[in-house]
């Protein structure tokens, strides 16, 4: 293919009518917000009640480069700045936790009571997708992503409950309120599946939704603050502007 064709600023809509299709590169600016949770897949029975759940302010901003090989099929790669976060308030019972500290200390216990957790992590992510464009309104993509964490927050409080020192047989210690901060414990690399759809609403503007499902627990195996894995499961709702 000739470079002239490669960088053609044709929007592709015209090309779908042509019989001789020439592959084309497309550029898009992506902007939106992430809604979802850093959560277990299936709740453990130690979580007794979810009293509240709210999204944090989680913008997603990126640039996508796609190669449209045929009328309908292509591939895309993007670079995005993704904030992923949420807040939750729940009630737990006999919730096992092990906290290890930098001075070599260790505390292990089972907590029963209220928990409030805030998560807000910033990733640089690289989604790679196969792109299917059945008509000039719809565009679907499916693929995976890799992401690097560069700023992390995972903190909260436990309150109005008690912890049993060492486990269920240990002595009960009442807790009115205590804080925790596991931000520094988080894994810096995430990988997952992603896919979504966009619908064209203007000449160059589309609205889109994309589900990103992390496949790697956000905490390393040796972290025992929680005894079940958490995954980043977020839906990006936003717009794409073709440039």
């Amino acid at each position, binding site marked *: 293919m000739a470079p002239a064709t490669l960088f053609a600023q044709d929007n592709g809509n015209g090309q779908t009518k042509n019989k001789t299709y020439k592959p084309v590169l497309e550029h898009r600016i992506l902007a939106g917000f992430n809604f979802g949770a850093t959560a277990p897949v299936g709740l453990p029975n130690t979580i007794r*009640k979810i009293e509240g*759940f709210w999204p944090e302010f989680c913008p997603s901003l990126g640039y996508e480069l796609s190669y449209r090989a045929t009328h309908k099929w292509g591939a895309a790669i993007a670079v995005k700045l993704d904030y992923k976060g949420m807040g939750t308030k729940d009630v737990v019972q006999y919730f096992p936790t092990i*906290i290890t500290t930098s*001075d070599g*200390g260790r505390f292990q216990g089972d907590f029963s009571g209220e928990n409030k957790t805030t998560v807000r992590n910033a990733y640089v992510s690289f989604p790679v997708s196969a792109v299917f464009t059945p008509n000039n309104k719809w565009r679907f993509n499916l693929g995976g992503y890799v992401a690097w964490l560069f700023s992390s927050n995972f903190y909260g409080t436990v309150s109005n409950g*008690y912890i049993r020192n060492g486990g269920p047989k240990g*002595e009960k*210690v009442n807790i009115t309120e205590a804080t925790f901060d596991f931000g520094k414990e988080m894994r810096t690399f995430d990988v997952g599946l992603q896919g979504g759809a966009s*619908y064209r609403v203007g000449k160059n503007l589309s609205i889109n939704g994309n589900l990103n499902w992390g496949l790697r627990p956000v905490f390393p195996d040796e972290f025992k603050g929680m005894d079940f894995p958490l995954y980043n499961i977020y839906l990006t709702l936003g717009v794409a502007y073709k440039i």
Partner: protein
Amino acid sequence: MNIRKLCYLATLMVMIQSCIRDAPINPEADIETFKIDKQYLTGDIFIDQANAKIILSLTPEAFNSGLAPVITVSAGAKVVPASGDSIKFDGTGPKQYVVTSASGVNQKAYTIVVAQIGVFKWDFESWQLNDNDKYQYPVEIDSSRAVTNMMWSSGNPGIALSGVKKDPMEYPLRATTDAFHGKYAAELVTREGTVLSNFIGIKLFAGSLFLGVFDSENAMTEPLKATKFGQPYLGKPSRFTGYYKYKPGEKYQDKAGNIMAGMKDSCSLYAVLYRGTERLDATNIHTSDRILATASIPNGGPREQWTKFDVPFVEKQSYTGNEKMMMAIVASSSKDGDAYKGAIGSRLVVDSLQIIPQ
């Protein structure tokens, strides 16, 4: 259409979140209350949950006749012998209560320790190790090594909650072979706080040793009320005697951890006799209107060598010595350790403590 599809996805995610499973079966196996009619007691019953011991201060009649305690346990758990069963305390009855959790998985065996009012004289020769947290505590044992009395406690069970390394030497109170008499003495060393204790503003743990009990349940919420001072006492005390050594640490620090130039740490070692069976704690051991008499070493300055002290009890109000009373002895390697002030490394060793009656 597209929006609707996104709504489906969002709903799906909410559904994943809202799948609350059946509650876990109760894994707890505590004796929560252990009740005996007050007329049979010389002091309040204490359940030492950390070391699975029920400490009873019985009158001689109750000790001889046996009793039928009323017991409550964790929801759904079972206890053997059952609540209401008569038990003997003279060595012929069961020495343990075994609680099995509702889940059936956990069993906790509580040893009954009957504390009779005896001679108030201690050499700190026998120590036990807490199973889970590996701190030491002094006990009295008989020839079969069964624990016959557990009069002393310390801040160790509270410090165990702060994530210290599970090693007896990491705790501020421990046994030492640097003894005045016998093989062991009690060593109290002020240590720095842990990463976890720093979260709640505690940068220093003073070594403590006291006649009384440590109430773990409220150690985090009201730490000064967790150290409950005193054991039942009869008669009128004359003098508080014993031997000690003290070396203050180099740098005195305030609660925030700032080094205070020119300040020297000092130890405290005192006895307080008070009326009633409800224990005083670190908030009122010096101020309660129930205090009858006190005895304290005159100054807590350095003592390189073993030093004998012999201080008379000073009567604060008149009393007969026949009422229900408690005697507290409190030792600390940093006098202001209750306010988290002192010098890291301050070391107090005490041995051969005694309350001499009139």
